[in-house]
């Protein structure tokens, strides 16, 4: 599960600016989609795996962060192999894995606050044009990273609640309470953001 949390370290990726890391991720991601040679995709996969596993993440943590996305990629692999060919499936697998591993490495080596700062800075031109509120987008990004583990914990609690009551765990019976509880919390979180002055309310005049 991607907690969006970094590990402290002194690797080159840790020292690199957030902007540079995001730019490399973007360029590499696009470049990998432009090639379809396994002679490039497999080395790309190996290199990104090396980068990811040397960020300082504990091995089991590194693996557990990959599990959910790995599951999706495997389904895609099977579907591609069935619908097209094994070669194309292999290309998709190594391409996606390389991107995921590098994105994971960027996440693991960048503090959330640094991400928020960079996103806010990048959106400043749009903010000046009145198209977005850059600080709000940065905050929203931080909130996603912060509350994903909480939502996952709640999902597990609801699932355990089902088991404790001897109920069969079905996605629909879990999703409904999960969504309701999450939305209920969202109201309080929004209020807390105002209370802490992160998002200045517009002054009202009576």
């Amino acid at each position: 599960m991607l907690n969006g949390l970094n590990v402290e370290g002194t690797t080159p990726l840790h020292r690199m600016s957030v902007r540079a890391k995001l730019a490399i991720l973007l360029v590499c991601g696009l470049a990998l989609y432009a090639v379809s040679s396994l002679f490039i995709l497999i080395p790309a996969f190996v290199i990104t795996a090396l980068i990811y596993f040397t960020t300082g993440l504990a091995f089991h943590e590194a693996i557990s962060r990959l599990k959910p996305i790995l599951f999706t990629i495997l389904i895609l692999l099977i579907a591609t192999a069935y619908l097209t060919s094994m070669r194309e499936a292999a290309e998709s697998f190594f391409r996606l894995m390389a991107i995921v591993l590098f994105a994971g490495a960027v996440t693991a080596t960048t503090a959330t606050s640094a991400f928020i700062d960079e996103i806010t800075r990048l959106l400043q031109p749009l903010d000046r044009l009145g198209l977005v509120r850059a600080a709000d987008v940065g905050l929203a990004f931080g909130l996603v990273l912060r509350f994903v583990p909480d939502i996952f914990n709640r999902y597990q609690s609801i699932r355990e609640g089902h088991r404790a009551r001897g109920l069969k765990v079905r996605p629909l019976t879990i999703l409904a309470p999960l969504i309701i509880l999450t939305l209920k919390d969202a109201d309080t979180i929004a209020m807390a953001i105002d209370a802490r002055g992160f998002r200045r309310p517009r002054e009202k005049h009576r």
Partner: protein
Amino acid sequence: MFTLCSSQNRSLFPSIRKSSYRAPTFERGGRGLDIRFSGASVTYGERAVLQPLTLSLIERRIGIIGLNGSGKTTFARLINGLVKPTTGQVTVNGLDTVQDASATLAAAGFIFQNPQHQIIMPIVHEDIAFGLKNRGMKADEIERRTAAVLERFGIAHLARRRVHELSGGETQLVAIASVLVTGPGILILDEPTNQLDLKNRLLVERTIAGLDEHTIVISHDLPLIEQFDRVLLFHEGRLVADGPVSESIRTYHEVAGC
């Protein structure tokens, strides 16, 4: 036998619309407190959550008690402008909570029932620093203040910890630190010892007792407010007792029917 929360209670506990109670006050180095409710009420649709209320709060430590759904949280949220009065006015040290919303929020910090809801960043240090960064403070000043507040609450060892891995007591202390780092003169805590085990409850109680800021605490944990200067009791959206701790708690027992 007293019927719990029935309409019969109303005659026994007429609402104190204009409260004139003044506890013996003392200053402990902080700024003065002057919160004024002038006919402030809150209504959601047809439902009156808080009846019109006129009172002023100047004491350093104020407790708010009452049964669930009695209007305690709404009253507290009126103070820092999280809830706007439907009628009347609330001022905090001269600031109108509606017209001077930002200044009021800065003057009165609020700790929610579930402190997890107000910790926005995933790492303790980042969350405390975020409040200061948001106020446009310089990096070295942010670092200095963050370190100072972590030290003040004895949680410097938690600085690099993930928020969702903290214990209940630790989370509560982080929430208090992250609010107080921005320097509000008033701290409002909504059931701060709720769901804490004995060890964490005592830790949070000791922390609250040691605060220099004016504190307003909503609590079902009566020992927590034992030493407070003034206690307000709410029942069915009305203030039914306002006075020293012993008096308000006695009335609370009558209201609760025990």
